[in-house]
């Protein structure tokens, strides 16, 4: 047996890949890498798109979302937003009798946050904060995701909403995450009207019941969206897209914002924005990006000079932690008072970018709004733009009407099938002998690669780097860039002493394993300044780790981060990998909040295969950026494992592997996802396909079943036990068939199927005996890809490699059916295949 030391996970990997569950960066088993499980949302929608994120409760912003990741059904997981929050609800009344700043002056959280009942969250799940149900998580049907011809798919969305009551108003912040990657942030407003007047106020409102004038008002909704596309925070940029219309043409220009900018909706130039990643590009050469539209701008408002933050619709700034609110922003931390002043000409180049979109609802009351007001809704839209190479919900081939005017007749979906039928043997695979009785060709060794397949067994998995801090810590560097600002509590290698405050454990009194860990101020301390991090950031850098190309890697480490309720997001623990060019991949960022966080060892387990081919150093940072609260952090037991060769290449150029990369592979160390007799019409009475170690079978001195499989333990084999007679563990009485898991072949690429097989028979065989391979489309349509028929000659059981082109199925999801048959008089028929893989070409 090979691979008997390989973890179960590794063995299952091909099947998980086939299911599209774990392709790419960061397998889902790494649960809450950024937050505790109670604040982690991880939803896979019916179409297999996955959204995961952390949520947080804040007294002002209410529910704040962090680390929002999208994983398309067939692609890698990528971060879109590091943080997404409501930044203000500004409500000026037409009579100027009130101008509310609801988020800062009241708040969406704390006592304003409503407790939800299950009947307000039908079919959904209530998430609790301090034992109060505050967030409703639902899956919503989202009508037609796409339709062309009869190819139609129903879409779905993850919806998260909370309710905050401020005065008579009830706000319903909602976030919709669609299975196609789009995000729709919205706010509903319901409850009751807040302000009324008598008939002298008629010009400021609308006559409603009880002879009252209900006063008209605006809701100016602002969001703070801290984009960190693909998880990197400093390489994003924002462009404004405008379109010049003249002479029947609509001509696009992109204008990149080089410094902080405020902008407005502009209907005549069809203005929209995109936020783009500076490094990762889709196949079309465009950066992966999100488009931002403010499509409900009918009530776009410009307020008085004293409210300059209302003078634009979208602001782009570089990240400053103390810039939280569009208006009434606290200024005691050195930030400006409102959004207009955040835009002060600072360069956006190489900065962490924050986008502040806004939209306005003008509410001229109706009689129906009293005594209770139905909810009205305002949304903005964020849409993936070249985030994927094709529609992430469809496997259809890329196609185009390519007509200047639509054809008069509908194009049925059937034309979207590949134009070129897959050729059976494009790469000089064995030419099946057409007739059995003539020309006893020596052997069907017309195979292109009869020699053992060059694929070496996957390189051994195992720990290639580790640090447990018990000794040998001299290669680690404190304050590596000589710019640390922490005045107390610098990282050290020590046996930590327990620290607690008000019953909260802030520093655990021992290492995760052994007696030493990397900790901030190991000595005990019960107050701020006492051996915890204070005054800024402390950093520790590891020695360099080499991650040779062509392998997969995971990093595992134990960590904790603890603080008291006076912490802010400026307090954090951050763990990154930095390569030799200085490019940084953040593995973990935990930020402080206004909730006590006790110390508790947690495990970070992240796939870092995307960094294969580079030399990296771990950078570990802890900061007390704000109130000199008690902030403690520790790290222990760092391991970097090589988990095997690149079976699931990390996303390159939009998420598709390089030539030679493996899309799908199985060596049948397990066959859990394979289906025997998929069509229910198998007729073999003996020797059905099984996942087993074949035993050598000879017949009259000839090896029919060769036994040891080239590539390790098990293979897929017809009747694995040895047998000396016809009917003894070989295929008899008809065919046996087995079906692969569903394999998705992304569009616009070429693919090769290769496998090792043998098909052995004695000389009374004929063409009714065969080993066939079919491709089966999801609609059930079968297409024969390969056939090796029996002949009237002895065919020994020799392993040979077969290579077949699957490019014609690009863009589709397919099964592979493999069949072996003894169609005749019960000859001794043995077949097996192994080491089946599909590679990008």
């Amino acid at each position: 047996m090979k691979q008997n030391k390989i973890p179960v996970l590794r063995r299952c990997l091909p099947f998980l890949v086939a299911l599209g569950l774990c392709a790419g960066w960061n397998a889902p088993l790494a649960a809450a890498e950024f937050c505790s499980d109670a604040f982690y949302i991880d939803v896979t929608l019916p179409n297999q798109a996955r959204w995961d994120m952390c949520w947080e409760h804040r007294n002002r912003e209410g529910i704040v979302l962090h680390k929002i990741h999208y994983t398309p059904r067939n692609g890698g997981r990528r971060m879109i937003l590091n943080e997404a929050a409501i930044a203000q609800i500004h409500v000026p009344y037409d009579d100027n009798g009130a101008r509310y700043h609801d988020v800062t002056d009241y708040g969406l959280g704390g006592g304003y946050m409503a407790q939800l009942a299950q009947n307000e969250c039908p079919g959904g799940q209530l998430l609790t904060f301090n034992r109060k149900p505050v967030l409703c998580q639902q899956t919503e049907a989202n009508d037609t995701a796409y339709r062309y011809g009869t190819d139609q798919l129903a879409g779905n969305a993850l919806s998260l909403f909370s309710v905050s009551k401020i005065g008579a108003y009830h706000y319903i912040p909602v976030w919709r995450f669609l299975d196609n990657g789009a995000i729709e942030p919205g706010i509903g407003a319901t409850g009751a009207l807040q302000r009324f007047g008598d008939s002298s106020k008629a010009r400021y409102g609308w006559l409603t019941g009880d002879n009252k004038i209900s006063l008209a008002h605006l809701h100016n909704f602002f969001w703070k969206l801290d984009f960190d596309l693909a998880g990197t925070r400093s390489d994003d940029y924002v462009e404004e897209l405008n379109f010049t219309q003249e002479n029947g043409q609509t001509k696009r220009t992109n204008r990149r914002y080089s410094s902080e900018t405020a902008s407005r909706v502009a209907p005549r130039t069809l203005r929209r924005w995109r936020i783009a990643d500076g490094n990762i590009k889709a196949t079309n050469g465009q950066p992966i990006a999100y488009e931002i539209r403010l499509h409900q701008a009918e009530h776009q408002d410009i307020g008085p000079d004293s409210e300059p933050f209302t003078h634009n619709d979208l602001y782009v700034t570089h990240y400053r932690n103390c810039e939280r609110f569009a208006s009434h922003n606290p200024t005691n931390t050195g930030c400006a008072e409102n959004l207009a002043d955040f835009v002060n000409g600072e360069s956006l180049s190489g900065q962490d970018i924050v986008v502040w979109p806004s939209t306005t609802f003008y509410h001229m009351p109706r009689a129906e709004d009293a005594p209770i007001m139905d909810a009205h809704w305002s949304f903005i839209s964020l849409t993936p733009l070249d985030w994927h190479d094709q529609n992430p919900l469809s496997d259809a081939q890329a196609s185009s009407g390519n007509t200047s005017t639509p054809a008069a007749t509908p194009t049925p979906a059937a034309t979207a099938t590949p134009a070129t039928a897959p050729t059976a043997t494009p790469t000089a695979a064995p030419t099946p002998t057409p007739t059995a009785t003539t020309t006893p060709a020596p052997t069907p060794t017309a195979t292109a690669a009869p020699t053992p397949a060059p694929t070496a067994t996957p390189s051994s998995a195992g720990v290639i780097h580790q640090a447990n801090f018990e000794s040998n810590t001299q290669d680690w560097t404190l304050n590596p860039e000589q710019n640390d600002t922490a005045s107390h509590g610098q990282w050290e290698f020590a046996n930590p002493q327990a620290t607690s405050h008000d019953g909260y454990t802030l520093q655990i009194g021992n290492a995760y394993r052994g007696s030493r860990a990397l900790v901030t101020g190991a000595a005990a301390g019960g107050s701020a300044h006492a051996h915890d991090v204070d005054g800024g950031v402390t950093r520790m850098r590891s020695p360099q780790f080499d991650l040779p190309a062509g392998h997969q890697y995971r990093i595992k480490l134990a960590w904790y981060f603890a603080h008291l309720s006076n912490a802010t997001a400026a307090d954090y623990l951050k763990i990154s990998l930095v390569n030799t060019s200085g490019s940084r991949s953040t593995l973990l960022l935990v930020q402080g909040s206004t909730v006590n966080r006790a110390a508790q060892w947690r495990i970070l387990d992240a796939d870092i295969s995307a960094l294969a081919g580079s030399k990296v150093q771990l950078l570990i940072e802890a900061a007390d950026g704000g109130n000199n609260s008690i902030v403690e952090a520790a790290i222990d037991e760092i391991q970097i494992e090589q988990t095997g060769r690149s079976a699931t290449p990390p996303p390159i150029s939009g998420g598709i592997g390089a030539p030679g990369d493996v899309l799908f592979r199985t060596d049948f160390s397990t066959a859990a996802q394979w289906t025997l007799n998929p069509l229910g019409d198998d007729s073999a009475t003996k020797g059905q396909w099984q996942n087993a170690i074949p035993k050598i079978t000879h017949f009259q001195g000839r090896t029919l079943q060769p036994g040891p499989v080239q590539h390790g333990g098990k293979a897929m084999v017809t009747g694995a036990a040895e047998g000396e007679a016809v009917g003894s563990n070989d295929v008899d009485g008809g065919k046996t068939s087995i079906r692969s898991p569903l394999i998705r072949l992304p569009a616009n690429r070429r693919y090769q199927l290769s496998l090792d097989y043998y098909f052995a028979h004695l000389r009374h065989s004929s063409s009714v005996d065969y080993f066939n391979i079919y491709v089966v489309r999801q609609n059930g349509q079968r297409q024969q890809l390969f056939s090796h028929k029996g002949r009237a000659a002895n065919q020994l059981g020799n392993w040979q490699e077969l290579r077949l082109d699957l490019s014609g199925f690009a863009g589709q999801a397919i099964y592979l059916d493999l069949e072996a048959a003894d169609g005749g008089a019960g000859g001794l028929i043995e077949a097996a295949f192994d080491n089946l893989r599909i590679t990008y070409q």
Partner: protein
Amino acid sequence: MNKFGALLCAVGLLLSWHAPASATPDTRCQGTPMRKVFGSGAVWNFCWRIEAKEGLVLSQVYYQAPSTLQRRVLGEAALSQIETRRDDGTAAAYLMDTTTGLGGSHLSSLTQAQCPQGTLHAFAGRNVLCSRTKKAGYLYKYTRQRQTEVFQISTFAQRGPRHYQTRWSFYENGTLEPAIGLSGILPSVGNNDAQFGWPVAANNQIATGYTDHYLWRLDFDLDSNSNNDHIEEINSVPTADRTKKDKVLRPVSTERGVSLNPDYKTFWRVVDAEVGHNAIGKISYEIIPQHYDQSGANSANVDWLKHDLFFTAYRDCERHGANNPQNSCTGNMHAFTQDRQNLDGADIVVWYKQSRHYLPRSEDSNRVATRWNRFKLIPRDWNPTNPY
């Protein structure tokens, strides 16, 4: 057909449609009656049919809140035209409704699988309409909360590469949301000038952008008398220091086109001259547009795309907002207004234009994700208080 629905419709005809002998075409139930009764007792009642050009057409649309009177909202309503223009201007505008039509053979047959949790309805022997009721979250939340539902009907039409889903959403509280969703495949790939489109991943070619102008025709016939409505424009005019807004009401008394004006928060409503409530105003429906951010799309600078709405007096031969057959009427909604007919107390038709510019993206390479264009019609003073 649902016999009960047919019976109710027949009863409705007898009870409330005092159709004069010389009935104008817009007072008849045309097509198949459909009725949606919500658990609360709210009712939407209407007729639907398929026209070769417009596809789905609604007529005699009635709304009834629980424990209130049933009243007509619309005499007839349809998406009257889709005008498509390419960014590179290399082809003339294409007019979906009138060139080959969204009905007839372009209308897709539906299977039950394509109408999940819904009901199929046949027209001319084919299942072409899907109806379903969906949860729609909070109706309101205050000292108590109430969940609400929406009833939706959809038809599907394939026009070459473009696939259109025509949808009408009938909310329990009287809100009506017409919508058109565009999907299908990219209509034009393989061009040279990136300024007029976007490179998409498929073959790394330029896909040309395009703008759809959706022109809806809404023949409002509030309550029983279709000839006594008028249009009111509401502006909230900011004072010089922009701290206050003064409401200014202005009747639109003759046919004209009007444009959105966010600075004045302009909106329009269709008001009945007679029916109202003692303490408050007359019953009305308000138009809530969307996609203001692309409402300036008009690359060819044609008159009928210069305004967001046009108001006209009913004429039977004015059926399409552009490319209207000109045997007895003029050709587009701008031209319809040029004789400045009186609108005060007329049978009013509202023409609403919504423009949407489509910039292709790699995600559109094989299937264009459905992009929705919609707006709302909401009751204003239809009931003296919230009926729920």
